[in-house]
């Protein structure tokens, strides 16, 4: 095949298709397709949403959630052997003995450390461990914002209704109550630590609309909300000299048979393990986008591999709402370098339109996320009206230039500096050209069940953030997950601090739970060589792997 010729970031044949979009733009300036009826929504969901389309899920066979459905990729990891053999593994004397072990350094884990410290746990009695660097996480990437009902015409009650409606009324009421009530306190806390939220000239917060919300409630820090929140919390964490280990993932819990009493860490560089003994453990390892459920690309960071769910299930923690996964409708589908990365919902909020190959607006731009995503899939794979990329991916156009047509020139650059920068790096000017989008795997809706203080059904184990389940029911609203991490990170910190005041003793360090787990797997008739947690996805070239000799 001849060398592809690129013009302004796009190959020639896509350029020609862009001409079609340019041609229909003037007619679309004042036209928006009608929202779907409830029946139409259901139809497209059944046909084309990855959660509803047949296949892709199976029942969990054993343990506290036996009988529940979950994505195959998740069940695969629950039905897997530990990385260590419990019959041979030698538990040495602990390398670290701490009051509080926190696993995962995103917003949830970092907030937990600060609040535990505020509530009397000394810095040196805490240990935070992270698989990557402290802060390399999904939290860092949150663009859109954080919800908190703090305006006159808003209230925690309205926030509650929005949240459970979005979650298909499957949310756990007590934790949603905590979420909406704590939100304003979280905002105050962040301001006092020095987080810079967008402000109006009179000093009040700038608050924006978002999908599924009935009030303007989205607090943002430009389009770098998670970055700003987390780098401030991390700076405070460092100022307090709280001990932290990086590139040391937890690969297993230790228990006395029932209660969680510590964890095994793994030094990613040397392969050496370390034993941590702890009186209380907070699990805050985030989500699972890098499992690429149903072969979808993802917005998530490199370490989002469901480690937390695997570890928690092995000690008998109960999960919930494992059957739904959130796909964001607008992931980048071109160029190759950024496939799967997020194009924020705010683009459509300000007028960008999804179009098919004929330059036709085929869907109302602000349907709920699941409906919007399914309609893109239908356009590409049922109606065959998608645009095919040089690598064979299909996508629909997102006509970003329409934002400037509707709101005046300069709007795009001012409102979306991060997005503008990202595409400019690949020679695409989003002020002039549409971009190609396709749904991308975004958020783990379910997870480990907790009470409003982050406590699980397992003694000694608290959970906070994306790894938990219940607060978002079957579907999370934008801006509720950074909030979730902050609210329940803080609560887990407070709760563990209170628990530690009762002077609990260190427990015995054993792998009894793994032996039990192995037995359950055998009884369920599961035969496999799979091992978990996987820690990272593997993107190495196939040709290289085929010739690999394992010496070291």
């Amino acid at each position: 095949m001849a060398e592809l010729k690129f013009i302004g970031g796009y190959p020639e044949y896509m350029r020609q298709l862009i001409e079609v979009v340019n041609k229909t733009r003037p007619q679309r300036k004042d036209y928006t397709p009608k929202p779907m009826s409830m029946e139409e929504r259901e139809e497209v969901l059944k046909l084309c949403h990855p959660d509803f389309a047949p296949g892709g899920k199976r029942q969990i066979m054993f343990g506290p959630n036996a009988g529940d459905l979950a994505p195959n990729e998740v069940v695969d990891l629950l039905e897997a052997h530990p990385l260590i053999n419990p019959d041979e593994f030698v538990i040495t004397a602990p390398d670290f003995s701490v009051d509080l072990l926190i696993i995962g350094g995103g917003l949830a884990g970092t907030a937990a450390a600060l609040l535990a410290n505020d509530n009397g746990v000394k810095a040196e009695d805490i240990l935070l461990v992270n698989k990557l660097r402290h802060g390399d996480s999904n939290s860092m990437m949150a663009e859109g914002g954080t919800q908190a009902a703090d305006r006159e015409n808003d209230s925690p009650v309205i926030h509650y209704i929005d949240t459970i409606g979005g979650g298909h009324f499957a949310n756990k009421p007590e934790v949603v109550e905590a979420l909406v009530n704590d939100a304003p306190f979280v905002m105050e806390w962040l301001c006092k630590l020095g987080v810079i939220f967008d402000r109006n000239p009179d000093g009040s917060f700038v608050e924006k609309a978002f999908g599924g919300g009935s009030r303007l409630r989205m607090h943002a820090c430009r389009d770098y909300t998670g970055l700003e929140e987390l780098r401030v919390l991390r700076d405070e964490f460092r100022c307090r000299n709280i001990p932290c280990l990086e590139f040391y993932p937890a690969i297993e819990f230790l228990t006395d048979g029932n209660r969680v009493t510590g964890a095994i860490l793994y030094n990613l560089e040397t392969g050496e393990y370390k034993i941590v003994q702890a009186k209380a453990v907070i699990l805050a390892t985030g989500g699972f986008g890098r499992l690429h459920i149903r072969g979808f690309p993802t917005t998530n960071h490199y370490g989002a591999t469901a480690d937390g769910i695997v570890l928690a299930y092995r000690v008998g923690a109960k999960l919930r709402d494992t059957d739904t996964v959130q796909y964001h409708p607008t992931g980048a589908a071109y160029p190759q370098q950024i496939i799967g990365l997020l194009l924020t919902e705010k683009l459509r909020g300000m007028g960008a339109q999804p179009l098919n190959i004929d330059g036709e607006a085929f869907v109302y731009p602000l349907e709920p996320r699941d409906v919007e995503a399914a309609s893109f899939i239908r356009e590409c794979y049922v109606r065959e009206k998608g645009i095919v990329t040089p690598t064979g991916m299909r996508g629909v156009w997102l006509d970003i230039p329409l934002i400037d047509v509707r709101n005046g020139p300069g709007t795009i650059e001012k409102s979306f500096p991060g997005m503008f920068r990202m595409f400019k790096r690949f020679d695409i000017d989003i002020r002039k050209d549409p971009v190609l989008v396709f749904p991308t795997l975004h958020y783990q809706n379910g997870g480990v069940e907790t009470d409003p203080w982050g406590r699980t059904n397992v003694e000694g184990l608290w959970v906070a953030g994306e790894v938990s389940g219940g607060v978002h029911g079957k579907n999370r609203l934008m801006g509720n997950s950074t909030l979730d991490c902050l609210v329940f990170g803080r609560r887990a910190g407070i709760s563990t601090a209170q628990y530690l005041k009762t002077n609990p003793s260190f427990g015995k360090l054993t792998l009894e739970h793994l032996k039990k787990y192995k037995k359950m797997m055998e009884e369920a008739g599961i035969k496999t060589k799979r091992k978990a947690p996987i820690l990272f996805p593997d993107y190495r070239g196939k040709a290289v792997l085929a010739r690999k000799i394992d010496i070291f």
Partner: protein
Amino acid sequence: MADEKKNIMDEIAEANKSVVTGIDEKDILHWIHISILGKKYRVPAGLTIMQAMEFAGYRFIRSCGCRAGFCGACTTVYRIEGDYRLKTALACQTRAEDGMYLVQIPFTPAQRANYDIEQLSPSIESLLRIYPEILKCLGCNTCTKACPQEIDVMEYIACGKRGDIEKMAEISFDCIQCGLCAIRCPAELAQYNYAQFARRLHGKYQLSIPEHLQKRIEEIRQGKFESELKRLMSAPVEELRKIYTSRVIEKE
């Protein structure tokens, strides 16, 4: 019908293969050569530096975080064959090009100070007490040229030297703390740590807690919403659904 639906998902998985499970050699149309730590590799054209290194057989532990330009883990220094200049980039946000000589900097040993944010003021005195070395800036602009976020780093340092904390916070806001400015600075400064400090001073002392927020906090403390929330928590789903569908949506 059921079969047809399943096919859609399989087709999607097949189409996404190049980013999920890796590209098949036979599907590669164009190749380039890059050099990683001095060793040459042939990789497909059109990948990021990060993806190209993975194709070559690297499995990252370090130098890879968000994969989306937000965390600054993947800082890379490179030179193009035939050109003497050293360039800087984020490996996850930069296309690999033919003739690149690459090395990654997984860690910047830059100095950062500890302080008690409660005991400070947003002033030049605070900045100079915590980071006196900021005055050593030579005004060479190397940092600005190195910044993958196109931040005017030299300018925010200049703001710091003048004590303009607000401006320093504003200019540095998009900083992802990748450390490339610090690595290149002839005065051995750690610009991004000073910027972090300035932003916290600005956020804490130069912005106030909005009144509407304080009011809401007071209302919650007094239990204003408690009974209504408790009622909803045990209300039947039909009632909740009714409330939900009859919401009035506020427009911007």
